[in-house]
């Protein structure tokens, strides 16, 4: 359902060239140093993307978009079956390279019966502040 989609965006100007960052995004050994404990990534559309995290969680997905030095997108699915899409984009910026990462998530079909309203509102206020209101 479209109105249950959600996304998170982060951007950072990193003190490195686009080439250096591209390598960190696509080299399996380097991915294993910052994104996950272990990573397998075949940076071609349709290639496999597979990650294992420090807590043992695994996420599996598929490479969706690749434009060397510009953008990379892949899907990953959590063990609960929820699938989201991660997209990195790079552009030169003053002081380095701007990296934007957007993770677009699924509709979660979780019910929260009996939740306490105070907590809901606190979570809601937190969400408002996260989207910058």
């Amino acid at each position, binding site marked *: 359902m*479209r*109105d*249950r*989609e*959600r*996304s*998170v965006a*982060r951007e*950072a100007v*990193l*003190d*490195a060239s686009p080439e*250096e*960052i591209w390598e*960190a995004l696509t080299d399996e050994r*380097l991915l294993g*140093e*910052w*994104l996950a404990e272990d990573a397998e990534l075949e940076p071609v559309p349709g290639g496999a993307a597979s990650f294992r995290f420090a807590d043992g969680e695994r996420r599996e997905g598929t490479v969706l978009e690749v434009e060397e030095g510009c953008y990379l997108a892949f899907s990953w699915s959590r063990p609960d079956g929820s699938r*989201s899409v991660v997209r990195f984009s790079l552009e030169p910026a003053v002081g380095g390279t701007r*990296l934007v*990462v957007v*993770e677009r*998530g699924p509709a*979660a079909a*979780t*019910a*929260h019966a009996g*939740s*306490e*309203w*105070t*907590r*809901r*509102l606190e*979570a*809601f206020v*937190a*969400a408002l502040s*996260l*989207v910058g*209101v």
Partner: protein
Amino acid sequence: MGPERIDRVFSALADPTRRRVVEALAGGSTVTASTLAADLPITRQGVAKHLAALRRAKLVRAERVGRETRYQLDGEPLEDAARWIAEVGAEWDARLGELQRLLDRRR
């Protein structure tokens, strides 16, 4: 939450009186428009109008009980979205920090 939904939620909550209505329902109350109006400095008709806007934004749910319509907050989508946004955002903050440290080590 998609952008359209966020727009609807934000425009519904842009009005200070509507935020008062949301706050009045935030204790978990399931009440009629008349009961809400008694607690707020607005008329019953005013409350009904604001409740209709909140329903369109799917922030409030209405339930017919006999001849009455009772209202309650419907914040589950928000809660769910808020948790996901907070968790995924925190993960990326940590990873981007690691990425910068990795890039620094490789210089």
